[in-house]
């Protein structure tokens, strides 16, 4: 095996690649959070539950309705997005004018209720969801065996994140969106339906979590607590990237996956805390986050 300075390079490359794969999930989830916070100033603690909902929806679609993975990849984010839209209209809208803490507590409560309901109905052990046939098998790289599905996760996540970033930062629709959150009254005077835009943005952000859920179903166990395990990490990533920075959330998500991968190689015991350590350091040195503009 190739070694450099006593480090097993093959092992290291393997961990870096695995880190990148995990980072893809972090990027998708933190992107959804960053959009919702950056544009709407809502701290959505239910994002993890929406990710869980996405995975369960994919499982239910296959098990009850025979809808395959590829269709689920399109339908489930729409369905989860619709749940998000209902949530925004019925529950979050009435308290939108209050302090951020209210929406934080509200969404946290929604997350707990969803998780509890799913545990009650489906149990805590989780459901099996097979990898779609077209993505079974894998590639033999010199340093590791890369399952095809894992490669697909990286590709799909980068495509979706890239498209989202482009839409928000580079298109007219995105410009309306950003302007609407800067000065809603002025935008409405120009004839733009800002409340509708807010609802759709929230739905889109939540739909991203649903998409990540479908992506996760074949590789992670589909279980009620899958979202809560990930949510705290994803929040830390959003904080590191800078609250509300779209590009920052994507880059930090991928980057933190790699940092975690490196830690798993050099000192596995710290792998569950390393992201929070980075968060503390970043907050001390640059309180607005790596890509944030204001504190």
């Amino acid at each position, binding site marked *: 095996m190739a070694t450099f300075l006593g480090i*097993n390079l*093959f*092992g290291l490359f*393997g*961990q870096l690649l*695995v*880190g990148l*794969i*995990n980072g893809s999930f972090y990027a998708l989830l933190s992107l959804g959070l960053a959009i919702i916070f950056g544009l709407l100033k809502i701290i959505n603690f239910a994002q993890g539950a929406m990710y869980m909902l996405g995975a369960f929806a994919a499982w239910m679609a296959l098990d009850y309705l025979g809808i395959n993975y590829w269709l689920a990849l399109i339908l489930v984010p729409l369905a989860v997005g619709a749940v998000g839209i209902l949530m925004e209209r019925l529950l979050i809208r009435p308290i939108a004018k209050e302090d951020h803490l209210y929406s934080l507590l509200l969404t946290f409560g929604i997350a707990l209720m969803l998780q*509890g309901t799913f*545990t*009650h109905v489906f*149990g*805590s*052990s*989780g*459901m*099996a969801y*097979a*990898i779609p046939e077209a993505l079974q098998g*894998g590639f033999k790289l010199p340093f*590791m*065996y890369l*399952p095809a*599905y*894992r490669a697909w996760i990286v590709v799909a996540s980068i495509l979706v994140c890239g498209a989202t970033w482009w839409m928000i930062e580079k298109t007219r629709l995105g410009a309306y969106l950003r302007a609407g959150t800067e000065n809603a009254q002025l935008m409405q005077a120009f004839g733009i339906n800002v409340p509708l835009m807010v609802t759709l943005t929230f739905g889109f952000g939540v739909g991203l979590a649903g998409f990540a859920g479908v992506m996760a179903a074949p*590789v*992670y*166990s589909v*279980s009620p*607590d*899958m979202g809560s*395990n*990930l949510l705290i990490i994803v929040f830390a990533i959003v904080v590191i990237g800078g609250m509300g920075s779209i590009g920052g959330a994507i880059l930090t998500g991928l980057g933190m996956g790699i940092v975690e*991968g490196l830690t*798993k*190689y050099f000192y*596995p*015991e710290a*792998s*569950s805390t390393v992201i929070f350590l980075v968060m503390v350091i970043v907050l001390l040195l640059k309180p607005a986050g790596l890509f944030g503009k204001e504190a």
Partner: protein
Amino acid sequence: MNTMHKTLLAVAVATTTALAGFAQAGPVSDDKVKIGVLADMGGVYADLCGRGCVTAIEMAVEDFGGTVLGMPIEVVSADDQLKPDVGSAKVRQWVENEQVDAVGGLVSSAVVGAATKVLTDNRKIALISTAASNAFTTSACSPYNVHWTYNVAAVANGTVKPMVQSGKKKWFFITADYAFGHALEEVATEVVKENGGEIVGGVRAPLGTTDFSSYVLQAQASGADVVALANAGGDTVNALKTAAEFGLTQTTDVAGLLVFTPDAQAMDPATAGGMTLTTGFYWDYDDATRAWSKRFKERHGAIPAMGHAGAYSMTMHYLKAIEAAGTDESDAVMAKMKEMKPDDFFARNATLRADGRMVHDMYYVQIKKADERRDADDIFKVIDVIPGDSAYAPMLPECNFVKS
């Protein structure tokens, strides 16, 4: 004797008589037998005991007739939320204020460690159905502990020994990084070494790890014959799934050291099929297990995990012991429980040892492949029955509470 002394003496005599009279009011304290069920009701271990244990214990009470020595039997339950402080506070409230005589269920070893301390301090009985640690009958043994279904030593012995003896000598561990995982790894390591095998490496993964791929890569690089999963529940399911995805299961054996039926059901038969493990109970073993399991499933909605069957069996034995002892006083009941041989669909060739360990037949089983399964409940094929004496570690002399 002056007046002062006389008065004191009179008070003392009166109090003693009154107390003795109170204690003799009936054979059963406060005119009922009350059993508490403490379990994780909504967390990661909810399927292993949880509501199912409440159902199983209620079934035992009903099958017993609902009364013992002419007094009603009552069942109360609580969620320990997997937190030792929550669990022990609940148990304290039960035994100190609510006249609970015994506490059953008892899942996470951390919670059970705290709960059994409170029970022993109050001289009340712990009926442990689902906890894995062997500490409750070794380093933390107590005259009031009854450990029924299995423990880490029994499952590790049952699974590891045949594999090492068949020539799979090099072992790698993926271990849950907390007390239970460490205990399981330690016991399994001993068995590997005793049988001439060696440990080529290991990693400790935090409880609730979502992604096991980096650990699987390390296992792959170790050149092990067997990758042992010293974890439980969702961790085992996730680790196995990842091992299959990265092609580890094609070149190496993966051994789940502690797998419950709900976990096995959550695994994809294509990857889990063929894996061997040791369990304290399997619902489809014979007519007696099937008959009870059918009744359980009708009430609970799912086939019983080993902890559920164990909870029923130990409650039955507890109630029979009260009847035989003629009282629900803990010391008398414990003596009777250890004297009588447990014998039902669950406890085969069984004895409750002086240290509180219930030693019974264990089952060495294989997870069925998809084409071997009749339906979703048809998951294990029983390969071998392991006699209790060879599965469980011998009793420690300091834990012999019934010295002859």
